[in-house]
């Protein structure tokens, strides 16, 4: 595992070098004043000071509109467009970990999803460890951490002297060796400072009850608490559209004359039409069942299928719920 130091001045050079190989996205303030991943270089300066992005980077891998097939003169054609090499700098460890989870469905599933696979292969993720957490964060309760390198190709830890870059896998090793000229040795002092940074952030996080969630949720299937929460849930898609691991989608055809396309768009289990049969029967007819599905899918069904919960503790659903429902409270009340 290669560990190197890059000076703050050399960081721009690193991004420029990557820019020669493909598109680079890095954090800067967007037009709404929020820090977001934007195509680099941009007018706004690069920033390393942010909690997390409003949206998770999942759209880079599962675009909100993905053309699966084109229709021309009655024939379906694969898009077959070449995908450009893409580098994402500044992805938080929770969001990177989410990629590993979505991989289980789209990359490792049989069959794998060719669209996701292509984007995933062509994208390099450079994570940035968290120095400061938000009150909605709970990554350490779901197997991650502010310095977790599980889903990144390279993990960066911002320090006073520069950034510690740590290769997370072979792709990361290659990347670091390709820009070796910009890097310096990581001294023991640097490594120690990075450890302290991460430990500081870890210490800020309050634990959330998730242990043994499968058994507890199985027992809680008929709990009246679903009804209580379902009464409040507006059935909007905010939580799942912003969730880095929510991957459900719809497929629709769009056509005018003989030209058209088959498009995949994000969908959400909180919507009533999601499971509505053609016959009018709906297996999850009210917000109660739909909210239960969301929680169960993350903390029970995913564990049953993949031995890991599909929540990375990023807290977006908590921060953005229009009526301030808190997943953590729900888990606690349900005894999960």
């Amino acid at each position: 595992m290669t560990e190197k130091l890059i000076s703050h001045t050399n960081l721009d050079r690193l991004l420029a070098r990557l820019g020669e190989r493909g598109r680079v996205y890095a954090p800067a303030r967007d037009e709404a004043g929020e820090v977001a991943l934007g195509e680099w270089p941009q007018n706004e300066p690069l920033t390393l000071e942010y909690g997390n992005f409003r949206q998770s980077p999942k759209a880079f891998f599962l675009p909100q509109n993905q053309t699966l097939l084109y229709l021309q003169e009655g024939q379906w054609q694969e898009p077959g467009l070449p995908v450009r090499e893409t580098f994402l700098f500044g992805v938080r460890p929770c969001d990177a970990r989410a990629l590993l989870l979505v991989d289980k469905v789209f990359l490792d599933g049989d069959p794998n999803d060719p669209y996701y696979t292509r984007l995933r292969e062509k994208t390099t993720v450079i994570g940035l460890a968290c120095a400061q957490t938000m009150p909605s964060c709970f990554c350490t309760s779901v197997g991650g951490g502010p310095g977790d390198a599980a889903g990144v190709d390279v993990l960066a830890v911002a320090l006073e002297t520069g950034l510690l870059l740590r290769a997370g896998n072979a792709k990361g090793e290659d990347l670091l060796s390709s820009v070796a000229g910009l890097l310096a040795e990581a001294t023991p002092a640097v490594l120690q400072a990075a450890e302290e940074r991460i430990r500081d952030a870890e210490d800020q996080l309050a634990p959330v009850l998730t242990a043994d969630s499968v058994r507890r949720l199985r027992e809680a299937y008929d709990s009246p608490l679903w009804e209580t929460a379902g009464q409040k849930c507006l059935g909007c898609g905010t939580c799942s559209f912003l969730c880095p691991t929510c991957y459900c989608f719809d497929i629709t055809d769009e056509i005018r004359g003989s030209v058209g396309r088959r498009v995949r768009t994000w969908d959400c289990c909180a919507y009533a039409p999601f499971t509505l049969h053609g016959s009018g029967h709906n297996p999850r007819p009210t917000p109660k069942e739909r909210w239960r599905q969301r929680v169960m899918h993350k903390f029970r069904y995913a564990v049953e299928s993949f031995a890991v919960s599909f929540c990375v503790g990023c807290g977006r659903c908590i921060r953005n719920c229009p009526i301030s429902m808190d997943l953590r409270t729900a888990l606690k009340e349900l005894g999960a």
Partner: protein
Amino acid sequence: MQSEARPEKGWEPRILAFLCNWCSYAGADLAGVSRIQYPPNLRIIRVPCSGRINPFFLLRGLQNGADGVLVSGCHPGDCHYISGNLAARRKFALVQELLKYAGIEPERVQFTWVSASEGGRFAAIVEKVVEQIQKLGPNKKLVKSYER
């Protein structure tokens, strides 16, 4: 400004027209039967009443490539269903304002009244609408692209 841009070469506006069955469609028919010349840019959809028109239809028309939409019903007071056109009038008044406010040329959607006996008026209105939309150029703002 786009609205003042010169129309593209060889381009002819396509205008979608919703005409009520009882007055305006008959008026258009009369214009035809009377051999009154008017521009051939219209694609006519006959509807029972101008009150049937949901503003969504107009937007869908623009989305699907119409450069303009014309809605025509019976004159106020003459509606076959007594007041369908009056209810429609309130909606239509808002549609133009809404489009204008959102930065879409309000002339792209037009409303008028034509009776069954007004073949000449129908032709004159079509002429005016086509001329206005010709000046605006192709609708590029709301049209949805299906091309690769």
